[in-house]
């Protein structure tokens, strides 16, 4: 059962403009979310590197300590 429904729209131009803006906002949000995802992975990688570097540094300091301390 299909019934045609007609709705009278007065401000067609304004509505189209608003829909266009909404569409733009949605695409902007999509891009932002993608960028955020990339940044998040980058941050994870940097933290991982930092952790490794700190571990390495701590071993060096330990060795120095062992040499100096009697």
């Amino acid at each position, binding site marked *: 059962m299909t*019934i045609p429904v007609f709705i009278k729209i007065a*401000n067609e131009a304004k509505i189209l403009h608003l829909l266009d803006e909404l569409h733009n*906002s949605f695409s902007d949000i999509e891009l932002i979310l993608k960028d955020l995802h990339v940044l998040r992975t980058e941050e994870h990688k*940097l*933290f991982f590197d930092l952790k490794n*570097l700190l571990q*390495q*540094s701590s071993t060096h*300091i330990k060795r120095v300590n062992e*040499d100096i301390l009697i």
Partner: protein
Amino acid sequence: MNQETPYFVGIKNPSDLRRHLLNGAKDGLHVLQLSEEIKTVREKQKQLLLDFQKNIFSMNKNLLLLQKYLPEHNKHSVRKHLSKYMTSSHKQQVADVPKTAVKQFDLSAYPGLGPARIKKLHEAGIHSEEDIKKIDISVLSERTSIPESVLIHAFKSVIVKKELPLKKESIAKKLPSEIHILEAKLADIEKKLNNL
């Protein structure tokens, strides 16, 4: 002038020590570099989140405006509008919809009834609330092998007017205990003695 007394420590491998010291300093510098990179990434994230917030605000604003510009409608006006295009057969179909879609008896809505128990209850002939009201819970329990307490808990709302089977405690309360019988006998004896 007070000078601290110098303190010397013998080092076995000076080159190794030197290397470790230098490497430690190098690592420290790398750590600082990485932390700066992390800082910039965080700044970028902050900026992106601000943009995101701005976008959401503008979207909300636009949606409100859109709602304002779109024609208002309510259920009645839509029905009225649709009725212009509906033939008699359509109207009949629409009228039939609520009848066919009358809420079906759903046993899963009752507490403590899983699919297996629902299947057993269907097999025992429970297809409506009336069936539950008509049938005795203990009989239903025997037929379905579902514990009586579970059935009582599940159909509490349906059988609320019916008398629930008495619990053992309440039965015990209603039956006269031995002490009461003995007391009654004693009272009889006392009466007889008084008469003598």
